[in-house]
């Protein structure tokens, strides 16, 4: 298997200027020097993406995902290390996609096509299907500055996929399109994947990453933290997320974290048969079992759960705040089980358990993230499966 992309020790350092550098001020020495600050947006990335692979990159905001993508697209050069890509590259980097604002959609197709390496003839031949796929016929002769961001992305995606790239780089662009277009894009990307196009995708939509990508790289604060199959990578990412929520809550919402009082020993999801599982059918009864140990004497302990949807939004949180566990002595082992039915649509979910003091202001411990996949009922969409029963009354003829 040959590689489509190779990064060796790649890193990018940006210089942030506090004020714009000016010839006049530097020449006249009005200020000694522009104030600047350097930061490594991403560093030490070794990566090989094979031809035809679908690869994902996930991480929190500002962790360097887009920087990696711009280097793979050749838009910017790495400060250290090397970046090499084989084949025609079509980048869809953030919203905007590289259009000239003053030009019409049609003219921009030519500009973009030329950048992607198509000749005029080739572009003219594909013009119809590009416009058709984007579905913006009525606006094709309007300057793109009058486009909505969704229309921008529609056209950009359409040009990129019609250029028959060997490598498609998709950075977070699809989120802007409406649902119908997103579905169309995923279908098209699947088609390209089957045809052997290498796809690298950055998305905060973990469900999409799981569906589209084989291997996934997790970056955090510019450092590659995990590289592996999508489910494990997503779990590793949740680990990073959960370890950082402590920090957030410390300073943020008025709750404080008090370490050394309770230690979580394990947390797992059990299926209907009581065995640990990672896969659940919609509506199935499941439970989450937490084992923790009290390290000191504690009066009242509240155990709570938060369940997150594939896109990271919390869908459900609950706790035994009304009936807390009482008087745990140092060294007592606490095992508790939260049972519920997985009334959820298809997707990959995560759950986190937390242990708080009875006043609900002091967090004592948090479990590692539990990831699981729900196979939902076909007809269900949204965040919850309320198991609607759709009954029909006997028709009456009037």
């Amino acid at each position, binding site marked *: 298997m*040959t*590689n*489509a992309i190779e990064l060796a020790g790649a890193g990018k350092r*940006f*210089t942030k200027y506090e004020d*714009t*550098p*000016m*010839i*006049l001020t*530097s020449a006249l020495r009005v200020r000694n020097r522009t104030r600047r600050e350097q930061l490594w947006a991403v560093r030490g990335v070794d990566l090989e993406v094979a*031809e035809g692979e679908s690869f994902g990159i996930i991480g929190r905001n500002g962790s360097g995902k887009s920087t990696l993508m*711009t*280097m*793979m*697209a*050749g*838009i*910017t*050069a*790495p*400060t250290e*290390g*090397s*970046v*090499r*890509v*084989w*084949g*025609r*590259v079509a*980048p869809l*980097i*953030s919203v*905007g*996609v*590289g*259009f*000239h*604002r*003053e*030009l019409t959609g049609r*003219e921009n197709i*030519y*500009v*973009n096509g*030329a*950048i992607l*390496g198509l*000749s*005029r003839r080739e572009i003219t031949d594909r013009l119809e299907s590009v416009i058709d796929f984007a579905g913006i016929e009525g606006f094709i002769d309007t300057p793109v500055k009058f486009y909505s961001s969704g229309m921008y992305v529609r056209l950009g995606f359409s040009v990129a996929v019609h250029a028959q790239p060997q490598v498609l780089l998709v950075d977070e662009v699809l989120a802007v399109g409406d649902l119908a277009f997103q579905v169309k894009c995923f279908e098209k990307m699947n088609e390209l994947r089957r045809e052997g196009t290498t796809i690298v995708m950055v998305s905060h939509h973990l469900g999409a990453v799981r569906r589209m990508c084989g291997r996934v790289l997790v970056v955090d604060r510019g450092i590659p933290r995990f590289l592996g199959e999508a489910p494990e990578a997503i779990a590793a990412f949740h680990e990073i997320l959960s370890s950082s929520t402590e920090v957030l809550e410390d300073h943020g919402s008025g709750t404080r974290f008090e370490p050394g009082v309770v230690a979580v020993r394990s947390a797992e999801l059990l299926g209907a048969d009581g065995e640990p599982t990672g896969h659940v059918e919609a509506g199935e009864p499941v439970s989450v079992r937490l084992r923790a140990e009290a390290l000191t004497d504690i009066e009242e302990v509240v155990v709570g759960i938060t369940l997150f949807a594939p896109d990271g939004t919390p869908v459900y949180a609950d706790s035994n705040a009304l009936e807390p566990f009482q008087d745990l002595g140092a060294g007592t082992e606490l095992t508790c089980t939260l049972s519920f039915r997985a009334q959820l649509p298809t997707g990959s979910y995560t759950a986190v358990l937390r242990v708080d003091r009875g006043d609900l202001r002091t967090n004592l411990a948090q479990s590692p993230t539990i990831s699981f996949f729900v196979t939902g009922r076909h007809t269900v969409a949204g965040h919850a499966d309320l198991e609607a029963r759709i009954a029909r009354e006997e028709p009456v003829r009037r």
Partner: protein
Amino acid sequence: MLATAPTIDLQGESTSPGRLARQLWEARELFLILSRKEFHVRYRRASFGILWALALPLLQAAVLALVFSKVAHIRAAPHYAVFVLAGMAPWSYFSMTISAGSTAVVDSTDLSSKVYFPRAVLPLAQLAANLYGYLVTVAIVLLLCPLFHVGLGPAALLLLPASILLLALTAGFCLTASALHVYFRDVRYIVSAALMVWFYVTPVVYPAGDASGKLRLLLELNPMTGILDLFRTATVGGVGPMAVPVLISLAWTLGLLTTATLLHCRYQRVFADLL
């Protein structure tokens, strides 16, 4: 696949001159599209469309000719109006092109921060977009010559080297300034201020011979002097020896083109970081 060369091969920030030249050649289609587009954007919305491309320099030449001959009583052979127009043709190409070309990279941020192509294409497209207006003014000068009893001799062939030198100088200037402008954002203002002064230290509205003292020195150092001399020798005539001014233009041109090459080779791959 392994046998083929990578399409993107990045190690370090600079691009070798050979590779940059190859990339520019590969981007020729893009260059044509961008120049055509530049041309359209400029004249599409104007009500007389492309006529503006000619009307502006003609109007400017007419006003200047009127003002300077009546107020400052400048005389020049063969007729002052034709003398000014012959100066305006290269000058207005130069000034129009560098005022747009110096900011071309930053002005196309939408494009250059989202995709890669050799950034030099952007200022070069400005050069091509203004060429039409230049050719038309040159044609007008050539048509007016017989009206003022100027015979066009074999010297008219000098129009070719004059135009090539003008293009090369403008290219050197635009490429250098556009690279500097990515980092120093006041280049935009410095260029427009410089152009205003530059007009008066270029023998557009007066013959170089009329100048003396410090002005004389500036005229001699000015790369546009040699180009205007060449241009007028080719058309309206009446210019003295011009070997030295032309050599000075040539030196400036080579210097600017070298600087531009160095700047673009070193920095063009990281322009996007600052956009």
